[in-house]
């Protein structure tokens, strides 16, 4: 029993490592094989000598396999190269920004869960009614609105017209309200849809009828019996969406000039800071794989059937 469990854990970790490896390779391939980046960094009119110098500085003149090997060892030793515009280690730059993005993601995710889960449960318990249709439409709307546009309109309403909240930058909790609200929309919609699907499946199980037959109140059956069984997919999507938000907050951070990782990525692109872009991509991939691992751990802790 124990050996089988160990083997399963090992296989899962192995698969995750494989997927990290492939993701890293893809990032490398996208960066190197799609052409010579120096033309793009320096502009088309740059003299060949200058481009040659930059190629040497970036290590692009070495054989591709050597580059790949150095890149992979760099990732595992925490060395992601140096930025072209800040003359600093990319890892330092990234970890300076992470706390800001983390703040935003935590606040946004909290809002998304607080609204999304009850909305999904409401829709599932009243399946087929107007409540259900309204909740489902709200959720679908949340997945159809460009989030950065919503952010801009919130700025117009609450910062420009009403003057209640600051329009951008960070510092106080008041600065956090608009960006985290904006950020919460997409995961909220996702969580609501998944909660509905998962709950309506759980509510159709025979043990729900038997619990009701035993005279347990409806509320208790919904939250204690059905919700517990519907929780797993919801937890999974929460963790995975957190991963997407961590690296995907670019547009929201841009709208609110929030000094997080997304802003850094954008700066890196605008200054054609090729090593920094690649470092951020690698960071995002590593975070994502770690979160996937976390999902598996949560699964085995929460659900005894997975053990």
């Amino acid at each position, binding site marked *: 029993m124990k050996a089988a469990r160990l083997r399963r854990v090992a296989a899962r970790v192995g698969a995750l490592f494989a997927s990290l490896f492939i993701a890293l390779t893809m990032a490398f391939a996208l960066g190197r094989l799609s052409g010579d980046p120096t033309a793009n960094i320096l502009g088309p009119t740059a003299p060949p000598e200058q481009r040659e110098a930059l190629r040497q500085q970036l290590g692009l003149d070495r054989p591709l396999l050597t580059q790949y090997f150095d890149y992979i060892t760099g990732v595992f030793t925490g060395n992601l190269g140096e930025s072209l515009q800040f003359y600093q280690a990319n890892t330092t730059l990234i970890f300076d920004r992470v706390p800001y993005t983390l703040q935003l993601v935590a606040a946004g995710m909290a809002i998304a869960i607080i609204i999304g889960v009850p909305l999904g449960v409401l829709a599932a318990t009243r399946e087929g009614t107007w409540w259900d249709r309204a909740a489902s439409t709200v959720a679908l709307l949340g997945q159809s609105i460009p989030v950065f546009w919503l952010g801009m309109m919130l700025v117009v309403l609450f910062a420009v017209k009403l003057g209640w909240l600051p329009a951008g930058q960070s510092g106080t909790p008041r600065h956090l309200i608009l960006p985290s609200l904006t950020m919460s929309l997409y995961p909220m919609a996702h969580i609501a849809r998944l909660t509905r699907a998962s709950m309506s499946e759980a509510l159709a199980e025979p043990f729900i009828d038997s619990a009701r037959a035993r005279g347990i109140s409806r509320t208790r059956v919904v939250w204690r019996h059905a919700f517990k069984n519907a929780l797993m997919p919801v937890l999974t999507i929460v963790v995975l969406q957190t991963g997407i938000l961590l690296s*995907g907050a670019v547009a929201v951070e841009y709208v609110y000039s929030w000094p997080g990782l997304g802003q850094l990525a954008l700066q*890196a692109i605008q200054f054609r800071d090729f090593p920094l872009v690649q470092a951020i*991509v690698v960071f995002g991939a590593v975070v994502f794989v770690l979160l996937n691992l976390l999902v598996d751990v949560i699964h085995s802790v929460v659900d005894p059937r997975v053990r």
Partner: protein
Amino acid sequence: MSRLELDSRTSKGEAPKAPKARKPRRARTSVFWLAMPLLVIAALVFVLPVTGLLPEEGQDLTRTRQPPAFLSGGTWEHPLGTDKRGQDVLTELVTSGRLTIMIGLVGALVAIGPGVLIGLLAGYFRGWVDKVISILIDAQLALPFILIALAIISNRGSSLPVLFLVLALTGWAACARVTRATTLAVRERQFILGLRAVGASEARIVFRHVLPNLAGTIVALGTLQVGTAILVESALSFLGLGVVPPKASWGSMLASGQDELSQAWWIAFFPGLAITVLVLLVNLLGDALLTHHDPRKRRR
């Protein structure tokens, strides 16, 4: 994108059992009522510029940042107001809608094409082909789309071909995953066994018999992918990484409205509203089509 995964879960089980006697009328009418407004939008965007009914294109520095007609100070000459160069917002909206819709359609095709083909191969041939492809799909889904976009655009700059490359790379995996799951169900059906018994070649079975059985799912997937493509394009164009001037899409209109928010919010408001309405309709249609082709869901 992950919405597709959720739906794939329901279609992963056994082969669809119910004989396709009569499709419930509700599903068919809802598809019709969702497709209609989409056709109207497309017609407006492609036909209106030809009719000459729109306010004239071009800059007019004497009337910059005019509010829309329904606000005080607005005129019906410019129903949705003008931007910082005095261009009519409605005219701009209609003309840049063409590129937006085009990117949505082509963006969906470039993701669906390889996605379906790869998913079909994995689902039909199983074995090591399936294993390799599944690992590739997982790895692709492990990279958030914005990171892939950044990696490519930082290297290649932004242009339409690069945009389509980004859309293909970020979209194929979700399509492949759903196609694979559906193919797994189809290949277990009796008629496939029968075809093999009469000696039909593998290629013939896959393309002439399995693929047509996936048509419904593929159309639904493609529809949802159009919505995704439009959202991705608008986000990238908003950041100045997608459609860049002189070309214009709704996303790039949003980008130019960003600096004007405090003085002329309508420049950014209308393109965003247009994107929302279009993507919402497309998503509703995609969902209706998916339900339509998923017998397990239809029964409820």
